[in-house]
Structure formats: structure tokens, C-alpha cells
């Protein structure tokens, strides 16, 4: 059934403070809408449950990329087009721009926001593997103040997260300490543009004297929400990347992955390809990086 625009109220208070005041006034009643690339699809199909929506589009306090000495701070309302266009971010944390380039196509990237991607919480969210690999933190804001939590703890269940009903995602904090890490991101899907991932893996690792001293693995579509692969990380951490290590990491991934069968793929395919992506990354670690 086609959605009826008159069945929904949409307001645009125009400032972050005004939006937060509205959310505080009646927590849980207002659904924030940023670029609409998710909610307007639901609306068109007549399955948008929210009756009252509050627009975040055009709020400058949410759309920014700030370069600090220790971190990049990305406003939740920053579009994927903005992320692709930021030269410093692309040079230092290239997985972010690469993930952004795979989201839909140009018209979607001009509207879809990184905050919307995370709050929507799709298990296949394109920006999540890179953010997990970069050890991102998310900053949440309400009239009560702000708090920061590790992004790896943001999602709690399928399409659930730690946001309180009066809170908004304000920004994503990305530490600037990955310049000497090996970095990896691969999305597997039917085509590069438009397609939703069957499975994706983002990874960073530090190799010192042949030993993996630090590793982070972020996966999409291997669990009900984007997730770190802590057991696979533990199988590699502190070890040399031998055939044995790779086998142990594959086994750990297969043991902790909880993929599903759906219209895009099967659990078995996701499991196997997830393990293959991990293996591909680990094999890359054995090759000396070019200076």
C-alpha cells in the first residue's frame, strides 16, 4: 500500500537545541529523519509506523567534519558525499571514504547520513565495518548533556541501540592513530553501486617484528547487527600470521558468526565468505608493506 503523506506530521525546528527540546518534551514520540533514504522508502511502501517525525536535515550543528589533533569528529548529519570529499580524512582513514563510495550511488550519497546509517542499525550497514575497525566512539546528546560510548557497544540487538528516547546521535569520534596500521575493507554484493552487502569485513592491524600486536575486525551481515569479531581477533592477537594462525582465526570467526538466510544470501555463504575475507586480510599482513 502506498503511504499517505497526510498520515504523518513532519516538523523542522531548524536547530539542534530545538530538536532536543522537542525530544525531551515527549520522549519516544518523535522519529528523527535525516536524509530520508531509509524512512522515505518505508513511507512509500506504506510501512512507516512513526506518526510524528522531526527533521534533522539542514542542521549545521550536525553536519561537520572537525579535525582535532587526536581525532576526527564527524557530525551525525554528515552525508556520505561529504565524507568522500574530505581529503584529510580520505588520506588518513581511507576506509571511511571507500565505504561511503559503495553506499547506493551519487544521489543516495548526497542525502544519506552517517548518523542515519548507524541509528537505522541495519546488520548490513555500509559504514559500520570501517568504524569498528577504526575503534570509533559515538557521542550521544540530549538536553541532559552528552555522553560517549564505544561504537562497538552501540548496537544491542537487531535494530536496537543504546540511545535513550530523548537522545540523538551527535557525532562519531575517530582516533587518529591508524596511519601505521594495515587497513582492509571489502564488501561482497551483486554490484558495487546500489547493492546491499551480502557480507562485509573491515579490518585494521598493527604488525611489529612479524607479530600482530593489535587487530580489529568489524563485520556486516554476520550477526543481527554490525559487530566486532572478538574471538577471531583473539586468535590472531600476539601471534605471527602462520597457516596455523589463519586456520585458528577462520575457526574462531565461524564459531562466533551468527548470519541468517535472507533474500540477499544464505547463512552458509556469509559464513564461508566472511572467513575468506578474514583470510585475505591476514595473508596481506604477511606481505611487507611498501615504504
Amino acid at each position, binding site marked *: 500500500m502506498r503511504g499517505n*503523506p497526510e498520515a504523518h506530521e513532519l516538523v523542522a525546528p531548524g536547530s539542534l537545541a530545538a530538536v532536543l527540546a522537542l525530544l525531551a518534551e515527549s520522549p519516544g514520540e518523535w522519529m528523527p529523519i535525516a536524509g530520508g533514504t531509509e524512512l522515505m522508502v518505508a513511507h512509500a511502501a506504506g510501512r512507516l509506523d512513526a506518526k510524528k517525525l522531526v527533521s534533522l536535515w539542514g542542521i549545521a550543528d550536525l553536519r561537520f567534519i572537525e579535525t582535532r589533533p587526536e581525532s576526527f569528529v564527524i557530525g551525525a548529519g554528515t552525508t556520505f558525499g561529504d565524507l568522500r570529499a574530505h581529503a584529510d580524512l580520505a588520506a588518513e582513514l581511507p576506509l571511511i571514504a571507500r565505504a561511503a563510495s559503495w553506499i547506493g550511488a551519487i*544521489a*543516495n550519497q*548526497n542525502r544519506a547520513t552517517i548518523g542515519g546509517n548507524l541509528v537505522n542499525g541495519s546488520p548490513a550497514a555500509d559504514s559500520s565495518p570501517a568504524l569498528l575497525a577504526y575503534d570509533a566512539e559515538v557521542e550521544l546528546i540530549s538536553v541532559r548533556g552528552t555522553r560517549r560510548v564505544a561504537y562497538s557497544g552501540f548496537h544491542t540487538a537487531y535494530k536496537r541501540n543504546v540511545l535513550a528516547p530523548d537522545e540523538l546521535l551527535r557525532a562519531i569520534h575517530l582516533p587518529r592513530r591508524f596511519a601505521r596500521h594495515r587497513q582492509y575493507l571489502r564488501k561482497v554484493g551483486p554490484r558495487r553501486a*546500489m547493492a546491499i552487502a551480502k557480507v562485509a569485513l573491515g579490518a585494521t592491524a598493527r604488525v611489529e617484528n612479524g607479530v600482530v600486536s593489535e587487530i580489529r575486525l568489524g563485520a556486516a551481515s554476520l550477526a543481527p547487527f554490525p559487530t566486532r569479531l572478538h574471538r577471531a581477533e583473539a586468535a590472531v592477537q600476539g601471534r605471527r600470521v602462520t597457516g596455523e594462525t589463519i586456520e585458528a582465526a577462520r575457526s574462531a570467526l565461524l564459531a562466533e558468526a551468527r548470519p541468517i538466510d535472507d533474500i540477499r544470501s544464505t547463512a552458509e555463504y556469509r559464513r564461508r565468505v566472511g572467513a575468506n575475507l578474514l583470510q585475505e586480510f591476514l595473508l596481506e599482513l604477511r606481505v611487507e608493506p611498501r615504504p
Partner: protein
Amino acid sequence: MNNGWPTIHLTVNGQSRAIRTPAMKRLLDVLREDLRLTGTKEGCGEGECGSCSVRMNGELVNSCLVPVLQAEGAEIETVEGLARNGELHPLQKAFLECGGAQCGICTPGMLMAATHLLARNPHPDLAEIREGLAGNLCRCTGFIRIFESVIAAAAGSTQMRGEQAGHAR
């Protein structure tokens, strides 16, 4: 019933327009129904096919995914704005000459995506053209003639600026 509707102000192809409409109405429907600009087509209605592509404040967007309240104050460019004074836009001419349009449903969106691409990058290579049009689906042409149309238009724009033509291919 419509007392609660906001008045939305748009500049569409250079003309100021004010429309009283539900805030959640899609920009696509406002263009087609309220402003009778039916050049912009609806394909999938979910941001997958690009038929409804327009430019909003210079950015390519899928108008089916824009609640019109979020377009308040915006400059909108649609396919109707491409031709000037009865003269087709170079991209429109190239689509005609190269067979870039067949059934025509995707064409307005293709033209807007191609306009956006050339505005950002006057001499795209084939990979850049493919990326610029990746969100626009055509089920007639097989895309090659569309890519050739964009290449031809880009080469033409070189000639118009008096630079050396013909290297875009």
C-alpha cells in the same frame, strides 16, 4: 483538513514557487502533481532506479526520497529546465544523436545525473561516467549508448570552449 499544511517555497528551474502541501509529500509528487512538471518520472519509488533524479541546491537527489519540507527554500533543477529558449541542452542533443534514449522513462533522470556529473567533472573518463550514472537504471539501451551520449556531450563542451576536441573518447 489542509489548514495545518505548511507553505513550501521552492525555486524550480529559476522560477519562484509557493505551494501549500503536506510536509511529508514527496518532492517528486509536488513537482508532478502540484507544479505539473511531469518530466520527472517515478520508477521504483524507493531510491533504487534514479528515474526521479533532480538537482536540489546543486546536489543530485532522488526526489522520491525527499519529503518536501526538507526542500524548503531550495533551488530545484528538473529536466524541464535543461532546454533554453527552445534550444535543447547539449546532453539532450547527444542523447538523441547517439541513441541514448529509447523508451524514455529513465531519460530525464539520466539527463539530470549526467548534467550533475559534467557540472562537477567536465571531462569524465568511462569509469567516472559509469559511477556518475550508477544509480540510474535503463532497461532498453544496455547503457553503452548512454555512456556514448555523455562522452559526445563532454567532447562538444570542449569544442564550445575552444579547446582541443575529440580526446574524450
